[in-house]
């Protein structure tokens, strides 16, 4: 039975991961703006989730400037599914 995942339990991390579940890949700045967080906070979360194997990072370019693209790995998608299932189960147990 899946447990709550401490790596994506924090609201900001959960928002980041669920936002990325809506796309195949997104530019770092697009997600940062959607979550309304600073570059440094976003970088910290992305680094932690990348180290855990939940995100992949790719360098690209757009209009002549370098950009960073991020996306969920299969492990990240599974972790999100399991975490959401664990949250639902917790609510069901109490209800």
């Amino acid at each position, binding site marked *: 039975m899946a447990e*709550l995942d*401490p790596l994506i*339990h*924090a*609201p*900001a*991390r*959960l*928002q*980041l991961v*669920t*936002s990325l*579940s*809506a*796309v*195949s*890949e*997104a*530019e770092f*700045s*697009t*997600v940062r703006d*959607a*979550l309304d*967080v600073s570059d440094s*906070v976003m970088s910290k*979360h992305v680094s932690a989730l990348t180290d855990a194997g939940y995100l992949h990072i790719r360098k690209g370019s*757009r*209009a002549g400037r370098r*950009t960073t*693209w991020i*996306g969920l790995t299969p492990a990240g998608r599974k972790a*999100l599914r399991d975490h*959401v299932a664990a*949250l*639902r189960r*917790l*609510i069901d147990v*109490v*209800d």
Partner: protein
Amino acid sequence: MWKVARILSDMESTAPLQDPDEARSLLSVADEAPRRLAAGLRLPTGLHPVLGIAVALQIATAAYGIAQQTAAGLAVLLAGLAVFLLVAAVGLHRFRRINGVRVDGLASHVLLGSGATASVTYLAALAAATWAAFESVWWVVAVAAVVGGAGYAFGAHQWWRAYRHDPAAHASGVSPRMLASLAVLACLGLAVLLVVG
């Protein structure tokens, strides 16, 4: 300063859940975040009409090319296919540039017409147009092509609405690597047809 520290602390909190209300609040976050991101995405202006016209042109040229069974007919068929691929590729590139995201589900529906409406309409229209081209009933070719193009565009429109409603469920699709593999296979198939023909 204490306020910033508090916000950062909240963001990284991994304390165990104390009550189901907190779990409900987190589930609400999980539901809302992808919808908010998807709500901010915009399709390139005129993507669906232009796609419909490109597909109609591709169906008409394919029907003509197949019915003619000549080198000139094959050239017309390939030209129609090239126009469609160009329109689809430009549309997807513009989507990425405008929004800063890549959605493989969109590529699947724009390039491959992978939805039921698009694929059924396209195949029926191509079959009807090809039959009509063999019979030299050109107005039927035109009507079938227009219906096929409209059905294809409508299928892409349906997918977009479904995606906006539940982005996580509709985001996945054929990856760029798989699309490239399919393109290589298609080229090989055409080459075989040319050699055999």
